[in-house]
């Protein structure tokens, strides 16, 4: 190769509240006990992963007004788990999804800054917003965010947090025991943020953290979402795990970053991916088919389609044809508490009917076909090659890897695939930096920050 090999960024996610995670497996562990998180994080660190990633829950999912009981239900709180993990890891980044809608900047800024101090600069925040009144019922704030305001909320939240994180300079803590000077200036931590979402001022409680600003992760697919992420994120969760769609997304988002005045290399693109290994390709395929069949039971298939039809489909035979009724977009949502937005249910159903017709698929087979995440399947050597090719061909800058088997599944990847990626020269043999920002190859922040008094409101 002429160009130097790209170093693959690796994140590890823990399978949770979805139908992919094989809780029915005899070896499946607790989804709650800290030992599960500790094992996964230590395994990821053994494999020199860049970070461990934890999603968030704010309401239990419901179907037709009843708590959902088919998949995994329940999880611990994101930030306390990451703080506990900081105590049992030394290099691994700690990334968490936290909702910008149901949190306030002051509290969130101090939580992430605290985590950054406790972890020695290994923190990342995955910014999401939600706007559903269902989730809002769990919060005193209620479901107050209009959907059209979600990017305003996210942008102002990020800007507010950066203002708060920047409110202390590196040299504000003088701490001179001899002279009795603790602070270098009397207004250390002063901030003011005014915008459509926030009007706050005062003094921040957490002095500047090792990274200065924790790493910002986002997901964005729509043009608006891509632009937003290209302007404000350090890394983007891409939904595209296959070439050529992935490379198209990659080119597009990097170009948007360049147009926003950024070095495209400073914005990392990371799809999530799972894997199934075998001693032979045939064995791997067999394992994959088995797992997939267990993930999509007839009932799971009905429920996944109910999100689109917005109707009770429990009366339709999973091994029969797709439901012959139309979606019911005007009915109250049958599935609540799951991020699933349909611009046009009718178009989706029409497309699925065509696919089912053409491929002769039953309801359940259609779901298996359409809800496919496209894991990397094969021998360790094949999987290492596929992953490396995907990244070197600009499908992404790395992957966020998870297994359907919690918490043991990642071990297989670390033991068998990671050494091959290292042999290929695409994965470092050891950590190169002390902070997550360093390990990701993100540019260092200026040591002395430019303090802004009017923070939010610029990016809407």
């Amino acid at each position, binding site marked *: 190769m002429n160009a130097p090999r790209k170093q693959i960024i690796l994140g590890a996610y823990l399978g949770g509240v979805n139908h992919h995670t094989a809780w029915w497996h005899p070896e499946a562990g607790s989804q709650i006990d800290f030992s599960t998180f500790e094992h996964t994080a230590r395994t990821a660190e053994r494999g020199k992963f860049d970070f461990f990633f934890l999603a968030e829950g704010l309401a239990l999912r419901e179907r037709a007004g009843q708590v959902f009981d088919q998949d995994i239900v329940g*999880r611990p709180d994101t930030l306390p788990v990451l703080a506990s993990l900081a105590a049992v890891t030394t290099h691994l980044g700690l990334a968490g999804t936290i909702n910008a809608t149901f949190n306030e900047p002051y509290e969130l800024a101090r939580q992430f800054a*605290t985590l950054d101090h*406790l972890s020695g600069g290994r923190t990342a925040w995955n910014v999401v917003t939600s706007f559903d009144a269902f989730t809002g019922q769990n*919060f005193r704030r209620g479901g107050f965010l209009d959907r059209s305001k979600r990017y305003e909320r996210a942008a102002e939240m990020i800007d507010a947090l950066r203002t708060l994180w920047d409110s*202390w300079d590196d040299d504000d803590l003088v701490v001179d025991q001899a002279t009795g000077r603790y602070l270098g200036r*009397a207004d250390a931590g002063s901030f003011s943020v005014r915008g459509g979402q926030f009007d706050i001022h*005062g003094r921040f409680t957490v002095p500047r953290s090792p990274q200065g600003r924790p790493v910002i992760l986002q997901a964005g697919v729509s043009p608006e979402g891509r632009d937003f992420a290209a302007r404000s994120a350090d890394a983007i969760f891409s939904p595209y795990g296959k070439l050529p769609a992935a490379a198209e997304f990659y080119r597009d988002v990097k170009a948007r970053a360049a147009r926003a005045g950024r070095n495209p290399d400073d914005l990392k693109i990371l799809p999530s991916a799972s894997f199934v290994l075998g001693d032979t390709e045939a064995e791997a395929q067999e394992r994959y088919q088995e797992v997939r069949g267990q993930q999509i039971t007839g009932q799971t298939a009905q429920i996944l389609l109910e999100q689109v039809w917005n109707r009770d489909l429990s009366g339709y035979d999973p091994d029969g044809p797709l439901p012959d009724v139309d979606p019911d977009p005007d009915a109250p949502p049958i599935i609540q508490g799951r991020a699933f937005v349909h611009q046009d249910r009718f178009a989706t159903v029409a497309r699925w009917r065509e696919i089912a017709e053409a491929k002769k698929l039953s309801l359940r087979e259609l779901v298996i076909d359409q809800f496919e995440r496209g894991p990397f399947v094969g021998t360790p050597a094949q999987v290492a090659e596929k992953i490396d090719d995907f990244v070197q061909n600009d499908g992404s800058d790395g992957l966020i890897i998870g297994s359907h088997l919690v918490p043991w599944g990642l071990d297989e990847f670390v033991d068998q695939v990671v050494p091959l990626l290292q042999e290929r020269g695409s994965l470092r043999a050891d950590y190169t930096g002390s902070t997550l920002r360093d390990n990701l190859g993100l540019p260092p922040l200026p040591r002395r920050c430019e303090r802004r008094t009017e923070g939010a409101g610029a990016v809407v």
Partner: protein
Amino acid sequence: MASEPLHLAVALDGAGWHPAAWREPGSRPRELLTPRYWTELARTAEAGLLDLVTIEDSLGLQSHSPFQPDDRVDEVRGRLDALLIASFLAPLTSRVGLVPTVTTTHTEPFHVSKAVATLDHNSHGRAGWQVKVSGRAEEAAHVGRREITRASAEELTSARLPSALAALFDEAADVVQVVRRLWDSWEDDAEIRDVVTRRFIDRAKVHHVDFEGRFFSVRGPSITPRPPQGQPVVAALAHRREPYELAARGADLVFVTPTEQRDAAALLADVEQAAADVGRTGEPLHVYADLVVVLDTATEPGAARLRRLDDIAGVPYTSDTTVFTGSAAELADLVAAWQAIGYRGVRLRPAVLPEDLDRIVADVVPELQRRGLFRTAYEATSLRGLLGLPTPVPNRYAVGATGLKGRSR
């Protein structure tokens, strides 16, 4: 051992409770934001078999005055989020209780509930929560969703707080109530993993809490299964009627502050009166006396240390509670006397960290052990167990359960 074992808590805050603590040669003021500092403090407390450590916090920068901000540059300013410090300490300790301060006034009860529940999961049943009401105008401005007017000193010391401030305590009582309901919103055996029917939970054992109060409503259930203790320990610091009543309505422990004006015996009567006024039934509030301690060291008496600290600060130290100076034996005398009149324990506020914590563990604990007043080994694995609170705690939503006595409304 005496009929009722004595309990020892330590309140951790920055470089210690004296404003000049950070100037002491043995203090480590440059490490206050580091994981190592907090790890060593917690491990010292655990080596001393202490029941729990509390970790101070607020949604505003420290200030010299308890009522308003300042712009001083000669005292410790800046701190970390207490709940996350406690979460960090959970895997690094195994027996000591971890009780962070979390403000109720500007935070989401749903977040508080799952955060403390997760601390309890990660520590295998050692979590607590020190409930804190924020009546400070500048903290309200930090959050920005409501205004709180700065109260005058007269208002704050009158027999009854102004209604706007009193309402913050009513709101806090509702927060405690809804957090406790969310902890119970999953029954202990709700997760069934029934492979045959492909049901992960028995949804009849996961409950909406449907809390609707004067200040907010929360539907539930929690996203986090019931914590190992069922109900983690709820504590509150209280100096007057409204917080006593808050504690009596929802807390397990109350930290009170004996002074010359209002002594330890009088405070016990105040707490008892508050419990009667709010109709608390079931397990009585466990009352702990707060005490700032400046202990004798091998080379310097506590009183001399305090004088030296005061000289550095330029003014004599004043506290909301008694400031003790003296030997471990003298402290043991005082604590034993308080225990004899009905205190379950004391929460010691080290004037200087780590010095006074080290003295507590090396001198005070052995002295109390010699007198048969304090444990010689941890006798329980959960914080509730250590503190002598009832275990297991019935779940208010379980069929046939009587629920938590004194908590239904």
